[in-house]
Structure formats: C-alpha cells, structure tokens
C-alpha cells in the first residue's frame, strides 16, 4: 500500500494529494479526503493565529504506527497524511488525511480513525495567539473520547 507521511511548514494541495493516490490505477473505488483548517475563533474567543510545535522524529514515527494500525483494520489501497507546523493564520490548512480503498465504508472509517488518533497521540501542540495574549491549547476530553472508542471497536461495521 502506498503510504505518504509528511510534516511541513508549507501549505498542501488536498486535491493534488488525492489524485496522486488514484493515478494510473483502477482498483480504487473510494477516496476520502479530510482537511483540518485553522478557525478564526475558539469557543467564542477570537484567534489571531496559531503556532504548531511538534516533536521531529517522533511525530513521523507515531503517525506511521497509526497508519500501520489502520492497514490492519481495513483493506486500504493508499494513505496520505500531511501535517503542517509553524505559524498558521485563520483559513490556513493544518492537516490532511487521504484514504483510498475499494469501498467507501473502509475509506471513511480509516480517515476518521487516523484523525482521531492524530489529535490525541501525534506529538503536536497548538499555541493560540489571541488579542489579549497567547495560550497553549488544552487537550479536549471529547477528542480523547473520540480516540478511545476505536480501542473497543476493532474494525468498521461489515
């Protein structure tokens, strides 16, 4: 299975990344593309910008472990993960997950699984710039719950 994992400060092109996963092949019946985007407000507070710090070396390894895990759960035909770091402005892309499979159920489930784990297990930390100062974003219990539900569900429904 083709796997691409990139951490970069530069922007990405979601459509181009998705096209790369299907180019020249006829076995892919479903491609799911998820893009996470920097919002201009968080829980009602305006966000001027955000800076993503990461742990080089571990971030790639941790994402690769989850892609391998996804491959054991669903019959995937390709995965691409791109995560940006550095300073981002509202409207900027943050993260891209693209999954390819023969059928949509597997592609949807694998993309959601990867995003849930990226948010809680990949070593990235967001610092928001607000009009009154900067704060490190607190981890959300809802994100932890979203990741936990996969622990008890080995695979997507048949």
């Amino acid at each position, binding site marked *: 299975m083709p796997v691409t994992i990139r951490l970069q400060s530069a922007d990405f092109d979601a459509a181009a990344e998705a096209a790369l996963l299907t180019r020249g092949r006829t076995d892919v019946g479903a491609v799911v593309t998820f893009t996470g985007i920097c919002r201009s407000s968080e829980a009602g507070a305006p966000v001027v910008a955000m800076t*993503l710090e990461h742990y080089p070396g571990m971030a790639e390894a941790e994402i690769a472990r989850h892609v391998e895990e996804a491959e054991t759960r669903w019959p995937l035909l390709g995965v691409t993960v791109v995560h940006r770091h550095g300073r981002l402005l509202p409207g900027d892309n943050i993260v891209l997950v693209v999954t390819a499979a023969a059928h949509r159920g597997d592609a949807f489930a694998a993309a959601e699984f990867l995003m849930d784990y990226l*948010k809680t297990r*990949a*070593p*990235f*930390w967001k610092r928001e710039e607000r009009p009154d100062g900067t704060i490190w974003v607190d981890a959300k219990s809802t994100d932890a719950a979203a990741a936990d539900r996969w622990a008890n569900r080995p695979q997507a429904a048949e």
Partner: protein
Amino acid sequence: MKLLYFAWLRERVGKGEEVVEPPAGVTTVADLMTWLAGRGEEYAFAFENPNIIRAAINRAHVKASAPVAGAKEVAFFPPMTGG
C-alpha cells in the same frame, strides 16, 4: 540520557533539551520527574503536576511506570493537541 521538553514544559524549564545523568535510584519515568522537580524553581514549576505530563522514551509513548534503564532519549510534554 538526553531529555527533551515540548510546549509549556519547554517554556517553564527554559530549554528544549539537555543531557542529564540521573542518580541510581531513578528507575522509572515517574522517578525521573520527581528528581527533575527537585533541580530548581523552573523544574519544580514545570513538573508541579506530574499526573498531566506525558512522556516518550526513544520516540514512543510510555506510561509513568515505564523503566528508564537504557533510554537514550526521554521526552516530556503536555497532552497532545494536533490535528
């Protein structure tokens, strides 16, 4: 061993990495945090609530009970907020 700090832990400690030689009694990640907390005000502040701090050994997540023997690189950081 090499220690790495990220996010607000890095800011509180005042550096992103350092090399340390913990004493023999430090056998787990939890021991290491306790020892570090005693190294000065900035460390005490950084490690004041060890229950919320996450750790990795050689770039893989570990629990606080994990042994540090043989660890080349130990990282400390807050709960992750990527994606």
